[in-house]
């Protein structure tokens, strides 16, 4: 019985996939928490489509070269993030609306670019990723991105929190808010690009949003929500890979599906707004 949880990781490819997912959790989960708290959950989704044309251009220029495709995705994502961020600040357009415009255009462009040259097999690989294809280089790349993301978050943490809870205060106290916001958007893209190697462009957001959603059912203080999100991302990643190996299904979807299962479990038993605490809260207190 216990073997089910260890045998999948006897060969090196599977172990590398596990390490990649665990490392990924440390960067993606905190980013996801902020996305969710800023009510930008769907924006992560939009952004993941926005990186597609960059990936596609790299694919056209250099074939299935992961490094080039990642750089392409990074450039495209940053351009969209910065442009839509600027558009929000300069015009009256709301962030979600301007982002929707950019990502729809990017997605259309990306699909046209990929299908103009590639096979449907390659399109699927770009859209859904492949954990089996993570080599040492990809692993270092993910680790590097995660380290960078964590450092950046540590630096912009306070302005970012204030920008979420009381943006006006920060606008009066200094210009840090706008800067923190742009840096944050940039690292949304960095995390998406690292996650996309493992999970593909479509499911990359799963490692961000689902752990963040899980954590919100467990605490009402951001300093606890973030660690809970990281732990649940690691658990989902591990169990997802076990599921993938045992049932012989693709790894990306099974990681996301596992996180989804934990999400619904948390929704029922979570102490911060979970269903059990809402409908069976116990007798009311004296004061």
């Amino acid at each position, binding site marked *: 019985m216990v073997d089910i949880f260890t045998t999948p990781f006897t060969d090196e490819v599977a172990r590398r996939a596990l390490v990649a997912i665990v490392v990924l959790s440390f960067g993606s989960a905190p980013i996801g928490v902020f996305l969710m708290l800023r009510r930008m959950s769907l924006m992560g989704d939009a952004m993941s489509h926005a990186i597609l044309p960059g990936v596609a251009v790299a694919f056209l220029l250099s074939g299935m070269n992961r490094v080039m495709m990642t750089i392409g995705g990074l450039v495209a994502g940053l351009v969209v993030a910065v442009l839509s961020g600027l558009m929000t600040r300069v015009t009256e357009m709301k962030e979600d609306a301007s982002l929707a415009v950019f990502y729809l255009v990017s997605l259309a462009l990306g699909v046209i670019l990929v299908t103009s040259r590639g096979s449907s097999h390659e399109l699927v690989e770009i859209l859904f990723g492949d954990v089996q294809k993570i080599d040492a280089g990809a692993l270092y790349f993910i680790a590097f991105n995660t380290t960078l993301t964590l450092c950046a978050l540590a630096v912009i943490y306070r302005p970012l929190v204030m920008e979420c809870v009381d943006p006006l205060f920060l606008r009066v106290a200094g210009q840090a808010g706008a800067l923190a916001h742009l840096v944050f958007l940039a690292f949304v893209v960095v995390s998406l690009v690292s996650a996309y190697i493992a999970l593909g462009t479509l499911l990359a957001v799963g490692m961000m949003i689902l752990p963040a959603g899980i954590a*919100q059912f467990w605490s*009402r*203080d951001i300093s606890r*929500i973030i660690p809970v999100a990281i732990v649940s991302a690691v658990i989902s990643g591990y169990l997802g890979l076990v599921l993938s190996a045992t049932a012989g299904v693709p790894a990306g979807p099974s990681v996301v599906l596992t996180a989804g299962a934990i999400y619904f479990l948390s929704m029922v038993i979570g102490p911060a707004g979970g269903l059990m605490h809402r409908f069976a809260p116990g007798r009311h207190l004296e004061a």
Partner: protein
Amino acid sequence: MAAQLQFRDVTLGYDRHPAVHHLSGEIAPGALLAVVGPNGAGKSTLFRGIVGILKPLAGSIALGNVSARDVAYLPQSAEIDRSFPISVFDFTGSGLWRSTGAFGGLGRREREKILEALAAVGLNGFESRAIGTLSGGQMQRMLFARVLLQDADVIVLDEPFNAIDARTSADLLALVQRWHTEKRTVLAALHDMDLVRANFPETLLLARTPVAWGPTREVLTSDNLLKARQMCEAFDDGAAACADTKPAQAA
């Protein structure tokens, strides 16, 4: 003595429509000024201009020896995301922004300061509560605690006693008076004329254009208040460019 705040023919507004029209005048350091006027009179707009969120359409606002970021500004609290999971302690601590900045740590001295400020507004024991669990009055107390921590020379309070019960506003008013005795310059937008008459020596009556400005007793006459009420609230979309507008002065 040099003025703490100086308005030079200031016009503030949105889409070229003035919300504050041709305001000139000075506020001395240590003044305790009430800004009164009907809804839509431009009180909040004026405050947004003072803290630099809104650029004047014409004229200029000089802040004397301080910069806009040294002004403690308490907006109408609707702009705060109360569902955000942050504790009362952490939120209040943001008042130390000027000294700690984005990265400065909170040492024991800072922690004590935050606890003192919370105690001064009667929120002892609330430190680890999430801000979403506070009542309206408690929220306002917490925001005052943050203003305390900001330790600013100029304090701008936008309708601080709205929807606040008598006891809470009395407590918070005591803080305002304490700031006045500490020679800080305090501006407050208010609707309660009795409260203004009893506590604020100086009043600016605003109805888009300034109606009267001076000692409260002379400003809050029934004639002046009537005049203020008669101003129209709606922007006129067909309004022509204001002929009276002088080119904006360099700050």
